[in-house]
């Protein structure tokens, strides 16, 4: 996937600057000889590297060691070529270049890294049985959530399916309250009542467990936007598996008839649970499945591609033209959920290939470093901060107490005076509070 991108590069803290003209720096390598460990990994192009006995990677060209960089040295913004988007019923598509500011780049990097680390931590906690039930992880797909948010604002609306932790974050949730919800504690974003698939924030309607049901819900939100005369729109996400749901076609029809301001987004990660797209869909061109709805097929591993496409789609909606459909081609590293190792229906080689060639975080990092938009140390610093945030959140999520039993029957009805709820036996009288 992708042209104009660097060949296999590694995600690690000890990569030197990749631009041949740049000052290079000696960086201590944590592992003795990473290149020996994996002969397939090539040293970054443009730099001749050799190993010292101390395990340090040093560039032959490095005669100057730069010990600190001021932020004034960094490029404030750069324009990148992005992959062309496939169009359906559209004369023009989003632009072929995207301008990224240093500030946005750092923000996207941090957010994607936070999602990545949060999901990996959830994996750990699940294996320790501190998280239970359903847990559908989003690592690999970070560019979708972050790119989409980059193309809309928090006053727009968004709804998605069950692979929702990343969106809960981009829509204003904190790692702390997300993790505490996963561990079922009282400070969880839904007070422990919802769990992995039922997290809500302002203008974010979950987190929905029934495949496809969120799509008409999203159209209803869009209807409200139009009805109330706001400039807002609703982004309604679904996967390649859900794309065959009848209710989605019902929604395409009504959204088009009534010109609802909705962006349908199909996150095509190639697999609906264990069924590959070719085995599930007669047509895998999900961006065309809206038929009379204009569509775009976008590289979902490139946060800038996603952002530009989302901006384009948002403009389309806000100009009153009605719905538009985006297919984001993406990939999930984990299986469908924590109970799926994810290798019975796809090969480890495939997963590894995507990880090494198309990782969204690496792609952004490479772009920023090779254009002097950030330093390695700076990004490392962000990594450290993110790691700390996740650790603290995990610690909190493990130690926060579970919800009180008094809360068991609450939140049945809104704005109602307290009433009695039957317990497991006729003598168990519980109370429900609004």
């Amino acid at each position, binding site marked *: 996937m992708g042209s104009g991108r660097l060949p296999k590069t590694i995600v690690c803290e000890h990569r030197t600057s990749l631009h041949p003209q740049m000052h290079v720096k000696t960086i201590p390598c944590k592992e003795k000889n990473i290149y020996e460990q994996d002969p397939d990994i090539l040293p970054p192009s443009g730099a001749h590297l050799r190993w010292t006995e101390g395990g340090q990677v040093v560039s032959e060209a490095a005669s100057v060691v730069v010990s600190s960089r001021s932020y004034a040295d960094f490029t404030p913004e750069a324009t990148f070529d992005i992959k062309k988007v496939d169009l359906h019923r559209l004369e023009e598509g989003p632009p072929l270049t995207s301008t990224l500011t240093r500030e946005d780049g750092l923000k996207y990097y941090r957010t994607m890294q936070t999602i990545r680390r949060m999901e990996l931590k959830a994996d750990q906690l699940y294996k320790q049985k501190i998280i239970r039930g359903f847990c559908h992880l989003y690592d690999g797909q970070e560019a979708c959530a972050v790119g989409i948010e980059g193309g809309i604002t928090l006053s727009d*609306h968004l*709804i998605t399916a069950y692979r929702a932790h990343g969106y809960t974050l981009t829509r204003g949730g904190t790692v702390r309250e997300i993790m505490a919800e996963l561990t079922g504690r009282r400070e969880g974003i*839904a*007070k*422990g*009542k*919802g769990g992995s698939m*039922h997290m*809500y924030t302002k203008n974010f*309607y*979950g987190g*929905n*467990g*029934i495949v496809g*049901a969120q*799509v*008409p*819900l*999203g*159209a*209803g*939100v*869009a*209807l*409200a*936007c139009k*009805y*109330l005369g706001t400039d807002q729109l*609703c982004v309604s996400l679904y996967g390649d598996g859900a794309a065959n749901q*009848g*209710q989605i076609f*019902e*929604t395409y*029809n*009504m959204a088009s*008839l*009534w010109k609802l301001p909705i962006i349908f987004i199909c996150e095509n990660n190639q697999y609906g649970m264990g069924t590959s797209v070719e085995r599930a869909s007669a047509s895998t061109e999900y961006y065309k499945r809206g038929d009379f709805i204009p569509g775009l097929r976008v590289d979902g591993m490139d946060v800038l591609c996603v952002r530009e496409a989302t901006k384009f789609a948002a403009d389309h909606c806000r100009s009153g033209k009605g719905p538009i459909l985006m297919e984001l081609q993406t990939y999930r590293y984990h299986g469908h959920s924590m109970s799926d190792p994810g290798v019975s229906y796809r090969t480890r080689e495939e997963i590894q290939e995507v990880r090494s060639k198309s990782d969204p975080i690496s792609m952004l990092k490479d772009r920023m470093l090779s254009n002097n938009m950030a330093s390695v140390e700076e990004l490392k610093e962000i990594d450290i901060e993110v790691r700390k945030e996740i650790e603290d959140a995990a610690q909190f999520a493990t130690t926060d107490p579970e919800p009180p039993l008094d809360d068991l029957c*609450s*939140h*049945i*009805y*809104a*704005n*109602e005076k307290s*009433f009695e*709820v039957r317990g497991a036996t*006729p003598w168990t009288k519980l109370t429900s509070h*609004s």
Partner: protein
Amino acid sequence: MASLRSFLQCNFDILRKTFVILFVNVRDALNQAMDEELERDERVFLLGEEVAQYDGAYKVSRGLWKKYGDKRIIDTPITEMGFAGIAVGAAFAGLRPICEFMTWNFSMQAIDQVINSAAKTYYMSAGFQTVPIVFRGPNGSSAGVAAQHSQCFAAWYGHCPGLKVVSPWNSEDARGLLKAAIRDDNPVVFLENEMMYGVPFELSEEMMHKDFVIPIGKAKVERQGTHITLVSHSRCVGFCLDAAAVLAKEGVECEVVNLRTIRPLDVDTIEASVMKTGNLVTVEGGWPQYGVGAEICARIMEGPAFNYLDAPAVRVTGVDIPMPYAKILEDHSVPQIKDIIFSVKKVLNM
């Protein structure tokens, strides 16, 4: 002269009002309730099949589209799952939709949206996301519409926490409960009855007031009695009253309780009645197994009223079969007045 004129005017108004409001059929009661609520709150809107230009499949929404237009009275394609989901989503985002199912049989296409998207959301979000929606439409048996169009869904929806389920009998119920349902911040399943639409009932001036609401979750004793309690909902309430009239001639005084609400069930009113009369017969149009009557009997058994029963509580229900078409068969598939009378006499050992 002025005072004479105002005297005449006053009496004329009373006369006019008396004639105009004296008899209102259930259809018009529903229509007026929706009209008034649409006027009262701009966020209220109606969507469903044929609700706008057709004036409603059963004419319940007659005149509303002419008055309020396309924005607030929306004709949908025949896609229940889709438009029910859209209605729920609109409720999420702050509107107050009335989602009509042409009959509740078609709600099965959309039942996931009613239960999983509407009913459970307030709980799953720990009180963050409200769903102020009304789903309404005719429920239960009609006349000659056969098996797929005759099911009663009171028990199915009444089963689910998070929903309010309401089943009006007469015009007063229809008006007051629909207004209450629209004003309620929770998802309400509103079970009408097609056979009742054309039946006129008296409505007092108080009932015609635009803020007349009947509290959801409260049953009404339609007829006081001493020997036996008849508990019912919807059309069967009328049958119970007819049966009570016949039985009164034989000296049996039935207390008739109109449930009005299926969930939350007003057990207190039923218990108080049973503790007074000592006998209970439930009457419903739906199937017996796992039905409304079954729930009432179980609750009576588990509560204080059991000790006051002089005989086991008994249910009168629809026959446990899909609804047949031929008139003679259909007539024998639903509870009739004679079935109620027979059951009362059995329970009272007459």
